């Protein structure tokens, strides 16, 4: 019996080393291989990860590219770098990193793997102590003007509801979410001032849950807001937003008049009720899929804008509300289209900071 144990053990050891030493890399692909490392949350988070991945998948399907996403074990720099290394070693040398949490990891990666290309969304590479910002020729950083998107959604929702109480549920208090909130508040204000709507947003209904994955907490927050008479909640909160949507769906099924404004991607389908209606009034979108798709196209055309920080906003159609808004009347959509043009031309300026009169 002892011999058996020893034999098994030796077999396992030899096996693992044999595996480990196996033949050299066989995958020297000529075609572009595109990888993505997911941020906190899953690939089907109906928002950030999913939006980015859909753009990659679309490019992959259209041009026959190898695409792959990896899910890191945690959200530390070490976890991210590990997965980037895995992608790199497997021949995926075009790596998309969605989220500000990748900033320091990309800073390290740009030097560690100079022949790989990186796209970072919502951030730019810098050192852990923020002392040095440096972006190499193999990295593109993308920012969105979330405030403009939130503004449009705010105006659209206000015009549609005319007289109601609104709320906001954010995920964590990070710049991207805060900018959505500030834009939302400015949009409501703009509608009240210029279109005579009577929308109220109380401070107590302007909250950050504190995470992006606590679905139950999102549901609770939404329940308490709806109980207080709020009609429309703008949920910029990833998984927490899913909780908000769930609560709105169950209330709408019971006949209550409640709505949610979606975020990042067009969440209309997430809010569908059995009756075929959706409780998603509209969505404050960042065209994540378009961005990742465009970057891949640029890379294939040899025009990868390496070393640049790109800001996507109304002027380059990087943000907006969905083209189809079944829950918005045609008049409202027409008005919002006008406002979109005004933002584009610079006639309306949406502040991306907490200007006077805004909640945090």
């Amino acid at each position, binding site marked *: *019996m*002892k011999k058996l*144990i020893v034999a*098994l*053990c030796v077999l*396992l050891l030899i*096996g*693992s*080393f044999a*595996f*480990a030493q*196996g033949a050299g890399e066989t*995958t020297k692909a000529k075609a572009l291989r595109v*990888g993505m490392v997911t941020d*906190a949350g899953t690939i089907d988070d109906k928002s950030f990860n999913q939006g980015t991945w859909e753009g990659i998948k679309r490019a992959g399907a259209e041009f026959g590219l190898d695409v*792959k*996403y*990896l*899910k*890191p*074990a*945690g*959200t*530390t*720099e*070490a976890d991210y770098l*590990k*997965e980037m*290394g*895995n*992608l790199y*070693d*497997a021949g*995926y040398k075009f790596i998309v990193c969605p989220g*500000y*949490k990748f900033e*320091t990891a990309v800073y390290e990666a740009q030097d*560690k793997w100079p022949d790989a290309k990186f796209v970072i969304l919502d951030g730019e590479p810098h050192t*852990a*102590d*923020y002392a040095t910002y440096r972006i190499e020729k193999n990295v593109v950083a993308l920012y969105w003007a979330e405030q403009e998107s939130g503004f449009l959604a705010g105006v659209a929702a206000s015009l549609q509801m005319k007289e109601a109480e609104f709320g906001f549920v954010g995920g*964590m*208090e*990070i*710049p991207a979410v805060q900018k959505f909130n500030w834009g939302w508040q400015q949009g409501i204000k703009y509608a009240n001032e210029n279109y005579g709507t009577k929308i109220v947003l109380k401070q107590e209904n302007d909250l950050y849950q*504190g*995470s*992006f994955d606590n679905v139950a907490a999102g549901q609770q927050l939404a329940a308490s807001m709806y109980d207080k008479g709020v009609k429309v909640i703008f949920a910029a909160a990833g998984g927490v937003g899913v909780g908000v949507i769930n609560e709105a769906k169950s209330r709408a099924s019971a006949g209550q008049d409640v709505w949610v404004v979606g975020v990042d991607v067009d969440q209309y389908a997430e809010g569908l009720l059995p009756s075929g209606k959706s409780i998603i009034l509209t969505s404050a979108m960042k065209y994540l899929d378009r961005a990742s798709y465009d970057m891949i196209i640029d890379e294939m055309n040899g025009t990868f804008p390496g070393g640049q920080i790109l800001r996507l906003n109304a002027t380059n159609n990087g943000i907006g509300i969905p083209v189809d808004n079944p829950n918005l009347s045609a008049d409202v959509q027409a008005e919002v289209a006008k406002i979109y043009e005004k933002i584009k031309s610079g006639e309306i300026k949406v502040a991306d900071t907490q200007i006077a009169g805004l909640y945090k």
Partner: protein
Amino acid sequence: MSKKPKQKKEFKSNDFLIALSAVVLGLIAGAVLMAAIGSNPFEGFLYLFRGGLMNIERIGNTLATATTLMLVGLSVAFAFKTGLFNIGASGQMLVGGLCATLVAHHVFLPRPLYLVVLILSALLGGALWGVIPGFLKAKFNVHEVVATIMMNWIAYWSVYYFVPAYLKGPSLETESASIAVTQSLRTEWLTKMFHGSYVNLGIFVAIVAVIIVKFILDKTTLGFELKAVGSNRFCAEYAGIKVNRNVVVSMMIAGGLAGLAGLTFYTGYARNMQIGVMPSQGFDGIAVALLGASNPVGVLFSSLFFGMLQSGKGFMNAMTSVPPEIADTIIATIIYFTATSVLFKKFWDGVARKMTIRREKEVAAQEAQDAKDAQTVAGRLAEPSSGPDVSLHPSRESIGPVSGGTDGKEVK
């Protein structure tokens, strides 16, 4: 006959065999799973192992991943020994890590002295978080599972408040300012030796902890008492062991070990604390302890194994069409098989019994034969004395079947 007891002991299923069967069966189940989704399991495991061990840097990363798991595993195992289920390692990690991060930001001393202070701070932080549920258990009989889970959330939200309030980074609200590399557990020579991996001094802390825990459990009165309480607390009480005191001490040490895990994670593997994240290692450590059969040395090896799996997983995903979620499922399957270790114990005990019985039969047969031989020999010896009138044939026949038919053939 005198050999028999020794053989029996050798045959009994041991923890190592059980753990090995769990791992092997887990891997087989994983292979079936991979085959079911249409991937080649052999290829999958090839890349899984290569991902963890392919080059020096990856071995270093495996070690770095294993470090935290080792300490959490020790923590859980130690509490198991006293019959306690420490499910609060995550919270203890957070508090230990928080204390260590505070020290890393505010204490500036010569390196050796600094490291001592750093390690002590994490140890004390974790111990504090462990001692509270221990006290509640001893004093009010609050079940430690409930108490430690609640302590997890208290730690989670305390960190949530504390980090932005006192350790805030220059721009983000959601994580602490990064600590300088010189204030972390990473060291130049170790990083260089492993080609830029995250392996850090924590690995030595973990190994020393393994030795110390083994020593405490096997060689000290305290260890004996803790184990006695774990085996049967009423019996221990009857024997005059202070059960409540031991419960508190056990949870304190377990908490301290988990606190050290937090140290290695937040000041070694990572260099800052993110809020809103419950460290999953706290739960993975339960699996490590189970696979290691709550034995410090077992924990050492099982943490290395889990470290390799977790570290190689990503490479497997990158090289094959196995989705990341399946890799997690495979790891979970292995854990599942460990959790059902009782079955393996029964199985191996059954095998052992059969083999013992077979050997006993053989021995018995041998003995019977010996006896017969002895009898015939005795018969032979007795022949001359049986008198001259007795012919040789009957005695020859009696020998026949035993010594083979040669004599008979000759006769024919």
